[in-house]
């Protein structure tokens, strides 16, 4: 599970779903959660939270161009590539935050991913969970 510290910048809600905009060291992020400030009291502007997302939900782009719906994109440098038979694990540094991605080894080959590559890590907004931090930070 990737875990990044963030501050809530804004919360926009419908009946039970909220779009939360967040600021992290790696850049701006957004999350869609099935909660509202009424059901989760930590959904407040200014609150510090953790952003969680699974390694298997992180896509990797190289030389990206064109438009794409994914709102969470980070410029990263590949630190390590660990290849398995089916899956591979890529550890990236994104402005000081460490993000891990697990993608198929085939994709690693077709992207020709290697250490030191400049890449974009992409996460769908609805794959991002928020975790309340302990105490009233």
């Amino acid at each position, binding site marked *: 599970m990737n875990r990044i510290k963030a501050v809530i910048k804004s919360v926009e809600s419908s009946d039970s779903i909220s779009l939360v905009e967040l600021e992290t060291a790696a850049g701006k992020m957004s*999350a*869609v959660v099935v909660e509202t400030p009424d059901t*989760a009291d930590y959904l407040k502007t200014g609150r510090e939270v953790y952003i969680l997302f699974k390694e*298997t939900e992180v896509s990797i782009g190289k030389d990206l161009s064109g438009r794409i719906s994914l709102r969470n994109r980070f410029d990263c440098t590949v630190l390590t590539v660990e*290849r398995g038979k*089916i899956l591979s*694990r890529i550890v990236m540094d994104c402005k000081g935050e460490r993000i891990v991605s*697990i993608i198929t080894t085939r994709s690693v080959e077709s992207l020709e991913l290697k250490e030191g590559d400049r890449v974009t890590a992409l996460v769908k907004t609805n794959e991002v969970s928020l975790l309340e931090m302990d105490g009233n930070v």
Partner: protein
Amino acid sequence: MILKLEKRLKGSEGEFLLNVDMDIPEGSFVTIFGRSGAGKTTILRMIAGLEKPDRGFIKVGNSVYYDSSAGIDLPPQKRKVGFVFQDYALFPNMTVAENILFGMEKPDRGFLDYLLELTGLEKLADRKPDTLSGGQKQRVALARAVARKPEILLLDEPLSALDMETRKMLQEELQRIHRDMNLTTFLISHDFSEVFRLSDTVYVLDRGSIVKQGRPEDVFVQERLSGKVKFSGEIVDIKREDVVYIVSVLIGNRIIKVVADPAEAEDLSIGDRVVVASKAFNPFIIRV
């Protein structure tokens, strides 16, 4: 129902004070959770009138069971309480029906039939306890405990000696009896899934004091995720495969497999209690 109880108890680590103050809405299903020796059974015994608090007050509906300052102490038979223990404590020389009838204030065949049906014992009414399985015996004990039409049902680890399958069936029956008979039920249990499945409120007891209380999901899930799909379970296997780990988690009586990154699998070991969570967006729902 109001419960204020104080009593000095001797534990394995010396004396301690049991001191609880609970205000429980009638009709609740309450679990008391805690290590052995924390005072859980003593609370149930004091509600039943089998043990006396040093000081306290017990009121159920409009009737005061116990009030040390007014000198009120109703004897057990005057309290509308049913009790089920881990060992069935049935009369071996009586049939199932006789055991249940024994629990009644006045024999009531109609009510007996209702209880037999409620607990699925119709066909076993004329059998003696020693010809029954553990689950069947515990059903008889349960039927006998509610035969007095109590207001309060006290369950002291009633299912812990039973296998998983039987346990699950009895949990459903407990829930049905609790609802149908409009009971306020107290359960002592160490089984997380049982506590989650059955109780409205959990009180966590530690050396005589309530250290936590609330809905099971709030008491047992430390961190609050914004994910909505959450199950608690126990890790039964961790296996490395390729660059990831496959962690098998027992939830209820099913094992589900979760893919975990090595960084998180390192912190996990077999036997750990865990929460498996997913965002509300991910699960598929398929009609069966």
